[in-house]
Structures are given as C-alpha cells and as structure tokens.
C-alpha cells in the first residue's frame, strides 16, 4: 500500500510540474503590452443615426513618474452603432491591449439620458472586467470634451476626476457620487429615480466644477438640480459631510459648519391625508461670525438655523414632487413597508403627487469653534 501511494504521489508531482513547461503560453500579457483605459465617454454620434461616439482616455505606462514632465494621456474616439463595436474598432488603432479593468469613470452625454439607457449601459455591466464601483457622471457639454480635459491641479500618476468622487480627496456635499452598480439598480428599480453628478468646466478652462446634479426620468427629459438643491439632497440621502450654512439675522451673519446629518422618514397613510414625516438631525459648530458670540445662546442659533433650513428642504421636496421624480426612493420605502401585492407600485404613483411633507429639523450646535 505504501509503495502504491509513493508511486501515485511522485507521478502526480511530475504531472503538476509539467505545466511549468507551458509557462510561455499563458494568457498573461506584460505591462508594456497593455494600455490602461482610465476614462470612457459616451456621446450620441453625429455621423451615424442612433449611434454612439465612444471616447477613451488612456494612460501610457511611464518608467519613472518623477521624470515624466506632465501627464501622458492619449485620447481616441470612434463612432459606431453600439458601444461594444466602437471599442472593438478602437482596438485596431492601438498596438496594445485595451485594459478596461482599471477604468474608474464613465461620462455620459446629457442627451443620452432621455433615451433608453439600457442599450448602451448594457456593455458596461455585461463585461466582467469593468469594475462595478466605477463612477458615473454626466457632462455639461460633451463627454468627449470633459474626458479629454486636463485641469491644472492634475498631477502625474493621478486622475483628477477620480479624486472628486472617491471621497479620499475632496469631500464636499456638492459632489454627488454614483457608482455603476448603484446606477444600474436605480435605473431598473421601481420606486426610485437615479441621480448623476454633472461635470462642467470653468470659463478659462483651468478646472472642473462639479456641484450640480441631474435626476433621470424614465424616457423623459431629466430634471436638473441646482447647487443648493444638490447640496441638500446629497447631505440628506447620502449623509455627505461638510455641509455649511449661512444665517443672516439683523446685523448678525454666521456660517455654520455641519459635520453630521441624519435623516429618517416615515410614510404615514392611516392618519388623515397621506404624508411623509421626515426628521432631520444635524450636528455642527459655528464656523464664522461677524460678531462676538455668547456660547450660552447656542440654542437660539439652533432654532434660527432650523427654521431656515427646513424651508430649503421643503422647497427641494416640493420641486421633486412637482416634477414627479423620486431620487430619495420614497416609492421604494412604500414598497418596503407593505406586504407585496399586485398594483402596489401603481398605488404609490397615485399617492405621490398628493402627499404632503412634514419636516422636523433638529439642529444641535456643539460649540462656537475655538473662540467665542
């Protein structure tokens, strides 16, 4: 028996070692044979009807980052009837493998959003190597222009657009982050409208401005949210940090720095007309003031700020309701709190335009900062 095992073991070892001879035949391609795609832009095509123009931003491998004078990007674009076809054609224009696995941003043209999104988004979710944590954004002008724009603060070996969205660089409530998987689940779900950030370029072409957002509507024109609306929406639904708010009361001007925002809501149907009870709690400090402040008056500032902020939230909610969009996902919550039955979602569609909002704003200022 022991001899039998010995033979088996040694022959298996040999068989296991044999594949080493095939090493040169592996699927691996070295880094000098790859070109990394770091951004994809999709525009409607001007040449082909119902086609797309796909622009790729590619980063060339550089031996030493320190010696590179500036960022070395290459841009390619191609018009085709589908995204996959365009990328196939682009492969014939590059001498290296197009590596999509490192891509972290997909920029769409605004005009594409009112069409059937599935047709061109399908490519990105179907391929296994494209990350589902890719950021999605909308270009204010065209996707091609936005993706090929290099702002002045962009340093070698970093891509400015990633830093905006990945919450390790800038963190601002104006910047909304939507991942590809999030976008997909929202587009396909009943009861929520997906939101995307809008990327624009400033007048003298030196920097990006990302402070607005857009809410998609199924096969209709999307609705844009202004800076302030984006800020409120983002802080309420994503608990985005760094919210600031200016209070003006008689001679007193103050800026509050809110660091924590918590929002809870409940759909109440059985007491009188349907309503949504929303409770917002914010914690923060006073960041700037034109007068000396008394720390004992914090409660007073709380109530002043709460009143004003409540108004803004109400404005946002009624705007969303008037446009019949639901980026917060109230419809989802409605479905999530009732046992499933036929026509549940249609029921919600009837309720939503008439629902009233009851916002309770609770501001807790902790201190006046380092000075009184």
């Amino acid at each position, binding site marked *: 028996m022991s001899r039998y095992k010995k033979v*088996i073991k040694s022959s298996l070892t040999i*068989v296991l070692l044999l594949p080493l001879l095939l090493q040169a035949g592996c*699927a691996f391609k070295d880094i000098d044979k790859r070109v990394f795609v770091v951004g994809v832009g999709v525009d409607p095509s001007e040449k082909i009807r119902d086609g797309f123009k796909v622009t790729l931003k590619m980063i060339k491998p550089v031996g030493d980052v320190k010696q590179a004078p500036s960022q070395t990007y290459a841009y390619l674009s191609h018009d085709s009837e589908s995204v996959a076809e365009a990328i196939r054609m682009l492969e014939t224009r590059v001498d290296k493998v197009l590596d999509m696995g490192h891509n972290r941003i997909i920029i769409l043209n605004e005009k594409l959003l009112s069409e059937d999104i599935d047709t061109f988004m399908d490519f990105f979710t179907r391929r296994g190597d494209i*990350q589902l944590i890719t950021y999605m954004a909308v270009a204010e002008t065209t996707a091609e222009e936005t993706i090929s724009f290099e702002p002045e603060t962009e340093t070698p070996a970093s891509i400015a657009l990633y830093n905006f969205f990945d*919450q390790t660089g800038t963190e601002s409530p104006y910047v909304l982050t939507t*991942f590809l998987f999030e976008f*997909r689940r929202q587009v396909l779900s009943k009861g929520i409208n997906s939101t995307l950030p809008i990327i624009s370029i400033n007048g003298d072409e030196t920097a990006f401005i990302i402070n607005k957002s857009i809410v998609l509507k199924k096969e209709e024109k999307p609705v844009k949210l202004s800076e302030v609306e984006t800020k409120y929406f983002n802080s309420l639904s994503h608990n985005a940090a760094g919210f600031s708010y200016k209070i003006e009361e008689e001679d007193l001007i103050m800026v509050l720095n809110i660091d924590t925002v918590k929002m809870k809501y409940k759909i109440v149907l059985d007491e009188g007309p349907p309503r949504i009870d929303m409770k917002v709690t914010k914690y923060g400090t006073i960041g700037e003031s034109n007068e000396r402040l008394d720390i004992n008056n914090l409660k007073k500032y709380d109530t002043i700020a709460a009143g004003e902020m409540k108004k803004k939230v109400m404005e946002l909610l009624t705007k969303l309701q008037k446009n019949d969009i639901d980026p917060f996902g109230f419809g989802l919550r409605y479905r999530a709190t009732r046992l*499933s039955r036929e026509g549940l979602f249609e029921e919600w569609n009837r309720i939503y335009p008439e629902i009233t909002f009851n916002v309770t704003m609770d501001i807790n200022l902790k201190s006046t900062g380092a000075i009184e």
Partner: protein
Amino acid sequence: MNRFLFYLILISMMTYMVSTTPRTLIQGSTSGTVPALILAIIAGMVVTYIIVSQFSHFPGQGLPEILKSHIPKWFSTPLLLFLSIVWFYVGLSTLIIYTFIINRFLLPEMSIYTIVLTFVLVITYGIFMTTKSIFYMSEIIFLIVIPFIIFVQIKAYFSPSINYDYIRIAIMQVNQMPNYRSFSAATFIAMGAANLIIFNRFFTKLQKPTRKGMALLTLFFTYILLTTYFLPMGFGGFDALNNALYPWITTSDSIRMKFGLIERVVFIFIGAFLALSVVTITMQWHISMQLLSSVIYFKRFKWKSVNLTLPFFTICFWTITMYRAKTVTSNSLYKIVEFFDSIIVPITIFLLITSLWLAKKGAASKCPDTKK
C-alpha cells in the same frame, strides 16, 4: 459534536453560497423564496440531524462497509453506484461553475481547458490523500479563508452603498406560497452531512448530535442562507438582480474598500471562495472515487505492484470534465443543477436514510443473538 463535522457541513454551505444557489433563489424572488427559506432552514437541519444520528450508530465505518455487512448485495451495489455518480456530478457542476467564474472575472483570455486542467490536477492530488488528510486540509483552508469572508461580509453590511429598502422589499414577499425550486436549492446547501457516507470512516467516536451543536449549526445555516439571499438584494436592487448570472460576484464587486490594499474586493472574495470550492470538490470526488472502487475494483488491472483501478477512474473523471466544461452552456448548467437539487438530491437523501435505517435494523437483529 466533533469540530470536523462542522467543517464538513459549513464548507459545503459556503461553497454553494456563491455558485448556484443565489441565482435560483433570486429568480424566485417574486414567487415565494422567502417562505421557502424558512422551510429550508427547518428541513435542512432535520435532515442533518437524522443523517448524523444514523451514522453515529456505525462508528468508523463508511457506507460501503455498513451496507456490505447488513444489506443484501443486489440492493447495495446499484445504490453505491448511483451515489457515486451523484457525488461525481455534484462535484463536476461545482467545478464547471467555478471555472466559468474564473474565466469571466479573473482570466478572460485564458483557455477554458487550461483552467479546468489546473483545477483538476490540484483536485486529483487531493482525491488520493487519505480521508484523514482531507479533513486536516479542510481545517487549514477553512481557518485561513474564513476571516477574509467574514471581513468582506461585515464590510458589505456596513457599507454606505447598501440600501436596506431593497432587502425589506424582498422580505415583504413573505405572503406567498413557498417555491419548491428555491426550497430545494436552499436545502441542498445544508446537505454537507451526507458526505459522512465516506468520511464517517474518520469518526471512530461520532456522537449523536448534541443540542448545543445543533443550535450552533442552525444559527450558522440561518446566517448563511439569509446572507446568500438578502445581501445581493441590498446591492443589486430587488428588481434589477433577476438577470444577473453570478449575483454574489456582482455584489462583491460593488463593495468598495476605500483605503484597502486594493479597492476592488472581488479578487479577495473570488480567491477565498475558490479555495473553499477546491476543498468541496476534493471531498466530493474523493467520496465518489471511494464509492466507485468499493463496487468496481479490477484486481488484475495492475502495473508492477500498483493497482491501476483508481488512476483509471481518475482519467475517466478528467475526460468527462474536459468534455463537459467545453460543451455545457452556463444556462443549461443551471437547469441541470436545478433539476438535480429538486429531484435527484431528495431521492438520494431518502435512499441514504432508508438504507441506513435498514442497516441499523439488520445490526440490531444480529446483536441480541451475540449477546445471548
């Protein structure tokens, strides 16, 4: 209860958590998966209890030995043959599904043959180990891999991107008739105890399941089952997941490790489950091989002093695997697995329990005689 028994059951639960079960469960999401899950927890644990307590009457014996001494040959031979084919096929489908996963997400350019070959070589080495070594291997791999899996799952449950509303929508589908396909797929993953048909040889002192042990197992099973179904819902969305082929891979790709060594969790995740799947397939094929050789053993088929029966079976396994991996489509594979879960597995379990019961009766009728 012996700790190795836990590994036996837990490893098979975890392997199927990624491969086929989630898709079957999600496809029944609007037609009764949730009540099916509740039933599956009960059924899975009852069957586990019965199998373990039946085997505890035969310390240190595998099914072939038990049947040989207590059951007529005309019944035991076809039964063992049938069981060995079942176990081979279960292992084969796991192998092919994981091959597909690797081919789609890790090495899209590699030939499917190379992947299968690598798998098969490692597993073949495992098959020829003794039952005891397989247990030790399973323990080592389990302990290495579990921290990663738990880490990823904790990361997922506390991720800001998970939306619990989708999970609540899924729970709200509880008011439906249980779905048999979901029920059988969910029960199947608890069937690790059935591996005792060979692995019982290792347990010379297998005790009846204790209350504490069963409670612990129920807890694990409930957690694994609920996580398998509900966690992908939170990331993929209730309405959007239906057409996902590998819901768990998609889910792990949606988890972002902001400050991690690598941002994409999916590679850690696939790696961990790959290790578990290798252990599972090794166990299943080891069982299949042992059962097969207990029925068919060519005494004359020799090369020097080495009997070539087992290597011959191995080569048969390889050929079938290669052929299946190339010809099967992922959809027909799912269909076969579903058929297997809903029809073959209940029959197998029934046959297993009946034969054990008969054997016990046979043993009991002999015992009093010897005592007297």
